[in-house]
């Protein structure tokens, strides 16, 4: 396999139907993102990149508010989103906001909250309201209850006690009816589908406790359990809210990232002009224009034009594929040279290959069988609780207690076993551990990812874009004479070819050359300091003979005067890939044991073998189709391995969904990111290691917490069965165990060394 010699820009390719304006020239259409307001004004949200200080808030809001027609601008610092409102009767000009923010150094992206995020937001608010009501009720009932407990020990009159019990009932009943909704509804759903979840014993416990308390109050008894019932709801709602807050924060972050990556498309308007629109606004049948250096925003058939497209994000193949009229181009393909006019066949969420979509469906249903730790505990727990309460009722009746006494004891058992600590045990750890991961640049998609990550014993890496950096870079920059390198960078700035960007990136402060002439299919020529300089194919620069040969390398030559040099451009390994892989192999496992590392690539064997050799990976597969990757994963799974899949390409999406747990870099294709359990930022591979370490710690803490909950029950339940639990003891035991479990969860913050 010889070196792949790339022809340099061919934008001058005769393509009569296509006049190729640069994206900046085409008018932009933001109507998709604008929200009309009742008063006649308009509102639009932006995701902002680069916010890191308090001063940013003022700077950004002032810059936006200084624009004509802008009535208000409010930055949400937590979510990194800016909401701009335009006054009624003013024309909303979003592009002015983008430009203004760009001038002060922030990149803004039009943002549209997805439906799911809006639902989550509403749910979180409802939970918070329930929590507030339960908290208010718990505090006030506790005030009354403490008076009764101390009065019972001293000299409270039965009339005062009855008054306090009635007051408690008046507060507790409506509060429980409101704040208990999340549990009641969920329990009802579970019962309707003839199954049991944690909410069934909770609902039963709360209802029985309230019912018995009202009965006792009617009979002027000494004890009532109003405080226990409401406090139970308060603690359980806290756990539920924490769980929610973690997922919501991740979702907001993911929403921003989606906006940051959102592709725009240049669509042909009916009159033949080009308008830049968000890719989401393109529908099947529209014709769009894609020129060199851009990624295809949609799936489409080439109407006219000719180009080489890099499909590494789609198939993992790094060698560009030439396409011409009639060929199919998939969304995410990078056009290397030339320009294409595409007729859209599928846009937005429909742009996956049929094969990948089919495999994804299959994989997703398989994943659904995983049962979370808390749910497994709940499945065991609910029947045990109900049985224990029932047995203590029957036991006491047989032992000769009155029905009234036996029911009171059974209710005490239900209350004391209600899974306060159990419901907090897992969410509290998840919240703290997710915060730790976020500080290390890892965003979690699913809460149970910790449990699955902690079980991993095999790591499967994709090559292109995962082990290697997503953008190509110059491999032999150090060997190039500086003046030739400067010339190459200055010439490269005049080109839109993807390889030219890699060259330009080496000299960020280079000045573009004036008057660069393009020779179609070969390269660029210009005059630098009186000498002729050329950048392009080795033949174009007259040095074809001494070009070295490497499999996955693209060659670009530069000539300045009489001297020449050949730049080798390839997708380099992530800077710490070698170190991370070797550490994973020796000590990456949950207990310091080594992990089995494999390589699954869609690329050619010649490109994969050297990477595997460098990393010391002995098990590798090349040219695997998506189904092939799944087959390898299935084989590993059937051998009893739990596999962590790390991948970024569209072709990896099904294998990410079918692996036990999955990670992907933030540069991954949209579908792929959506199917990964977590996404990591940055150029390094270290987050993979950190994620495994945090997950191992988190799972250890979850188990510890569950153990604490069990020990608590082992002590409290016999007390309850023997009839010794008064409302005072129930209250102490319940809050005590919850506090211990929450404090223990905070330990997930410490002891994780940041591999930044």
């Amino acid at each position: 396999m010889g070196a792949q010699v790339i022809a340099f820009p061919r934008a001058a390719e005769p393509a009569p139907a296509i006049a190729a304006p640069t994206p900046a020239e085409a008018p932009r259409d933001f109507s998709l993102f604008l929200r009309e307001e009742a008063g006649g004004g308009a509102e639009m949200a932006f995701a902002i990149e680069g916010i890191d200080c308090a001063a940013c808030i003022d700077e950004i809001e002032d810059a936006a508010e200084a624009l004509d027609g802008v009535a208000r601008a409010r930055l949400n610092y937590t979510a990194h989103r800016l909401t701009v409102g335009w006054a009624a009767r003013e024309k909303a000009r979003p592009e002015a906001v983008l430009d203004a923010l760009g001038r002060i150094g922030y990149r803004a992206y039009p943002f549209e909250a997805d439906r799911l995020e809006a639902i989550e937001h509403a749910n979180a608010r409802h939970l918070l309201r329930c929590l507030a009501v339960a908290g208010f009720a718990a505090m006030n009932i506790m005030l009354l209850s403490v008076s009764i407990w101390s009065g019972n020990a001293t000299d409270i009159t039965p009339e005062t006690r009855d008054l306090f019990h009635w007051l408690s009932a008046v507060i507790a009943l409506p509060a429980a009816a409101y704040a208990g909704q999340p549990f009641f509804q969920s329990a009802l759903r579970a019962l309707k589908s003839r199954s049991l979840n944690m909410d069934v014993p909770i609902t039963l416990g709360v209802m029985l406790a309230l019912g018995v308390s009202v009965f006792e109050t009617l009979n002027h008894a000494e004890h009532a359990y109003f405080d226990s019932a409401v406090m139970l709801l308060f603690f359980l709602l806290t756990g539920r809210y924490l769980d929610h807050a973690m997922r919501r924060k991740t979702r907001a972050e993911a929403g921003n990232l989606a906006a940051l990556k959102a592709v725009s498309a240049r669509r042909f308007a009916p009159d033949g002009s080009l308008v830049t629109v968000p890719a989401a606004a393109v529908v099947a049948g529209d014709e769009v224009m894609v020129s060199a250096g851009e990624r295809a925003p949609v799936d489409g058939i080439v109407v006219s034009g000719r180009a080489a497209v890099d499909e590494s994000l789609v198939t993992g193949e790094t060698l560009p594929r030439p396409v011409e009229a009639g060929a199919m181009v998939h969304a995410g393909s990078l056009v290397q040279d030339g320009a294409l006019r595409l007729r859209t066949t599928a846009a937005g969420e429909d742009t996956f290959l049929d094969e990948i979509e089919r495999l994804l469906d299959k994989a997703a249903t398989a994943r659904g069988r995983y049962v979370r730790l808390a749910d497994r505990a709940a499945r065991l727990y609910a029947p045990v609780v109900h049985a224990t309460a029932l047995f203590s009722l029957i036991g006491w009746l047989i032992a000769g207690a009155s029905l009234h006494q036996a029911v009171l004891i059974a209710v005490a058992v239900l209350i004391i076993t209600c899974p306060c600590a159990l419901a907090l045990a897992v969410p509290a750890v998840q919240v703290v551990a997710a915060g730790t991961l976020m500080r290390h640049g890892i965003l979690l998609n699913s809460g149970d990812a910790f449990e699955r990550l902690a079980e991993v014993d095999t790591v499967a890496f994709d090559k292109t874009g995962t082990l290697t950096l997503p953008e190509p870079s110059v491999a032999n920059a150090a060997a190039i004479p500086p003046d030739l390198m400067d010339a190459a960078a200055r010439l490269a700035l005049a080109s839109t070819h993807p390889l030219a960007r890699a060259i330009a990136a080496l000299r960020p402060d280079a000045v573009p050359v004036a008057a660069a002439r393009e020779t179609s299919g070969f390269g660029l020529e210009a005059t630098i300091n009186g000498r002729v300089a050329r950048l392009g194919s080795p033949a174009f620069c007259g040095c074809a003979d001494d070009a070295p040969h490497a499999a996955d390398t693209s060659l670009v030559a530069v000539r300045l005067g009489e001297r020449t040099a050949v730049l080798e451009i390839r997708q380099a390994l992530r800077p710490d890939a070698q170190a991370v892989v070797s550490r994973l192999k020796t000590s990456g496992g949950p207990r310091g044991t080594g992990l089995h590392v494999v390589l699954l690539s869609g690329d050619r064997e010649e490109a994969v073998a050297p990477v595997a050799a460098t990393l010391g990976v002995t098990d590798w597969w090349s040219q695997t189709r998506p189904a092939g990757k799944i087959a390898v994963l299935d084989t590993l799974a059937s051998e009893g391995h739990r596999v962590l899949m790390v991948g970024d390409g569209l072709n990896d999406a099904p294998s990410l969904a079918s692996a036990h747990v999955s990670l992907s870099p933030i540069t991954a294709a949209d579908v792929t990111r959506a199917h990964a359990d977590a996404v990591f930022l940055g150029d390094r591979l270290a987050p993979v290691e950190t994620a495994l370490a945090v997950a191992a710690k988190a799972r250890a803490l979850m188990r510890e917490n569950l153990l604490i909950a069990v020990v608590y029950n082992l002590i409290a339940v016999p007390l309850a069965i023997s009839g010794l639990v008064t409302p005072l003891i129930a209250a102490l035991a319940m809050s005590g165990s919850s506090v211990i479990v929450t404090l223990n969860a905070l330990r997930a913050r410490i002891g994780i060394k940041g591999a930044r």
Partner: protein
Amino acid sequence: MTILLYLVPAALGLGLLGLLAFLWSLRSGQYDDLDGAALRVLNDDDLAPPAQGPRRP
């Protein structure tokens, strides 16, 4: 024990006031941007510029 007739409603009323205040603050979006609120307090552009007076060394 007639004192209870004043004290219990007073205690409940205060608690209810707190609950209503919380629900109001939730409704008006004060929990949407907790990190931002912590930083906005540092803004000083709502202060009048300092009066020109004799400066201390």
